[in-house]
């Protein structure tokens, strides 16, 4: 920053010196009519561009626009060399006198980003540079300054060191051709600027319009001037248009300042209004609307940060991707150093990121309030979803029980009935066969009973109801296919719903350990702490369990959430898995 500052100060000093030199040249020249006015115009226009250009450069160092505007100011002074009595300087002034106009065209087309946007822009700018540099070189080869070249003859001018042949008619023809080509590029400039004016919208319009319009006027009078020169309009008319061109040129830097000021004042006012509006009666989306209006961005969206799931949500509590994938920019909003949300907005506003932050700061309190509401809505939304899942899980469970009954115990009993029927038929004729059939019937009955027991336990374990959590967990541990250590259970009974949830957490946990963990050992504990039941199932297996896998854990999480509790799985590769539930005990 300090380096930039020094460079800019050096440039300002250089511009002051160059301006003073130009004034000295113009005032002491015999060849210049209206010496005073010419000197004033030259230095005023040059310093205006350099001054405003350096300001823009300083404010937005990464935007080339400021540098371009400064360059216009310097290039404009080259014309003053024509007042020099040194022949080489004089003819260089003649050749490069209009270079400033080409830089101006470049600057206008590169506005506001400092970069040209398309092929047409580049063609017009390159053409402008060619016409205003090399374009006058052929003329200089044939022009003796003593002779009249459409108002550019001069008495008392030095000789032309580049003169090859004193052929004024050739010089005139070349000059007309040069002006005609310049006119074509000037028309191109006007057309591109018109297009730019039409396309500017939203956030940009207020800031861009003044420069684009004054640039358009300057381009237009310039076109008239060059075309007038090309077709040989009367000198008085050309002089008048020339004067208008000077005025139009001089207004461009100030139009830029005006646009900057207007958009800034406008937005500062909008932020002030925003603060006032936020005090009004709260309404859903009022904050978004107020911010959208203050920043003049209809696409603006306000999102809220929920620390608990660690995600952004909209005002309805639905999750929102941040940063968004549609290319909009993100400005975070904090309150007392705490993240409360973010504003998603048009990237064009990044040029004024300070403003978006100011608006965000003004809105932080309201945003924090809306965040709490959004959090509530997100919670309600989650509750609604989990309630639906619970109801569906209930239906699924009943279907499963019906299926298990039908495919299991019922089929066993059917087979048993058929076997008994056959045994009855055989009992008189073939007693040994009847005995075999009855043995088979006994086995079928045992299987049916075992299946019914398993099913009943899955619906609700009777031992839990009758003898409490400790006995039920001991039974679970005893049936598990690996050693399970029960390290703690509460001394007193917990509410039935909590006991039931804790039981199924352990049951599902041990089922998963047996199925996936490749563990040698598991521990189970249930503790009552600070009004909560803490249930934990830990194993020494391979870890790497994915909590999103399967429906078992999901259903379990819903079951725990229905009691306002939460379920967490920690399962790093190689360190085993810990399934942990916290359930409030009312």
């Amino acid at each position, binding site marked *: 920053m300090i380096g930039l500052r020094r460079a800019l100060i050096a440039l300002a000093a250089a511009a002051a010196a160059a301006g003073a030199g130009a004034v000295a040249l113009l005032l002491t020249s015999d060849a210049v009519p209206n010496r005073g006015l010419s000197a004033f115009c030259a230095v005023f226009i040059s310093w205006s561009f350099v001054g405003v250009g350096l300001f823009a450069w300083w404010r937005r160092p990464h935007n080339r626009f400021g540098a371009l505007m400064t360059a216009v100011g310097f290039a404009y002074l080259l014309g003053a060399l024509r007042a020099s009595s040194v022949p080489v300087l004089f003819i260089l002034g003649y050749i490069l006198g209009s270079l400033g106009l080409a830089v101006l065209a470049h600057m206008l087309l590169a506005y506001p980003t400092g970069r040209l946007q398309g092929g047409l822009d580049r063609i017009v700018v390159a053409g402008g540079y060619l016409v205003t540099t090399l374009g006058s070189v052929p003329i200089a080869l044939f022009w003796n300054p003593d002779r009249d070249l459409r108002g550019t003859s001069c008495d008392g001018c030095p000789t032309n060191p580049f003169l090859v042949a004193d052929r004024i008619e050739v010089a005139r023809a070349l000059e007309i051709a040069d002006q005609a080509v310049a006119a074509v590029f000037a028309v191109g400039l006007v057309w591109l600027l018109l297009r730019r004016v039409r396309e500017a919208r939203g956030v940009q319009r207020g800031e861009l319009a003044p420069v684009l319009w004054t640039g358009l006027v300057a381009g237009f009078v310039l076109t008239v001037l060059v075309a007038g020169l090309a077709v040989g309009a009367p000198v008085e008319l050309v002089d008048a248009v020339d004067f208008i061109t000077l005025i139009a040129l001089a207004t461009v830097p100030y139009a830029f300042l005006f646009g900057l000021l207007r958009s800034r004042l406008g937005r500062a006012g909008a932020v002030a209004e925003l603060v006032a509006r936020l005090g009004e009666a709260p309404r859903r989306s009022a904050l978004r609307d107020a911010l959208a209006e203050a920043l003049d961005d209809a696409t603006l969206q306000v999102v809220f940060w929920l620390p608990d799931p660690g995600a952004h949500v909209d005002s309805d509590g639905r999750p929102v991707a941040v940063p968004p994938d549609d290319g909009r920019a993100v400005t975070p909003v904090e309150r007392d150093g705490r993240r409360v949300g973010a504003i998603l907005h048009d990237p064009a506003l990044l040029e004024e990121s300070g403003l978006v932050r100011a608006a965000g700061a003004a809105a932080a309190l309201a945003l924090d309030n809306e965040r709490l509401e959004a959090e509530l809505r997100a919670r309600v939304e989650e509750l609604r979803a989990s309630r639906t899942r619970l109801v569906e899980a209930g239906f699924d469970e009943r279907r499963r029980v019906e299926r298990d009954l039908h495919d299991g115990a*019922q089929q066993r009993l*059917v087979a048993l*009935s058929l076997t008994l029927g056959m045994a009855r*038929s055989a009992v008189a004729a073939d007693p040994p066969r009847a005995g075999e059939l009855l043995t088979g019937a006994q086995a079928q009955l045992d299987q049916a009973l075992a299946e019914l027991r398993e099913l009943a336990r899955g619906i609700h374990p009777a031992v839990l109801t009758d003898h409490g959590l400790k006995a039920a967990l001991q039974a679970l541990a005893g049936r598990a296919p690996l050693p399970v250590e029960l390290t703690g259970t509460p001394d007193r009974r917990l509410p039935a719903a909590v006991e039931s949830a804790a039981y199924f957490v352990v049951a599902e946990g041990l089922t998963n350990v047996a199925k996936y963990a490749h563990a040698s050992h598991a521990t189970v504990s249930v503790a009552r702490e600070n009004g909560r039941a803490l249930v934990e199932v830990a194993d020494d297996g391979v870890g790497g369990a994915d909590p999103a896998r399967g429906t078992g854990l999901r259903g379990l999480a819903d079951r725990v959430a229905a009691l306002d509790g939460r379920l967490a799985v920690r399962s790093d590769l190689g360190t085993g898995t810990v399934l942990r539930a916290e359930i409030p005990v009312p």
Partner: protein
Amino acid sequence: MPSRVLIVDDHPSFRASARLLLESEGYAVVGEAPDGHSALRLAGELAPDIVLLDVHLPDLDGFAVAARLAAWHDPPDVVLTSSRDPSDFGPLVARSGARGFVAKGELSGPALAAVVR
């Protein structure tokens, strides 16, 4: 000549028990099918006299299989069976084109003969 029976049920244990029972009571069990499509195929190949058809099958249900068989030229006698009570199915049994219904637990040679007659 004994009646030739095709048993259609998705539970192997029932198919085995029913085969044992019916064969001990003088029927010839010519085939077993675990689902509706193989039931239709085997009925075409084996031309059984009786198809003992479970209502609940994994693909087509028993009523649909019975209706297709009933549309055949010289169709077999279809006897629906289920471990559920026939009243669970309302008018579906009567509409299916089957000759009748025997509860699985009550299956026997005479029960089958009473339906087919």
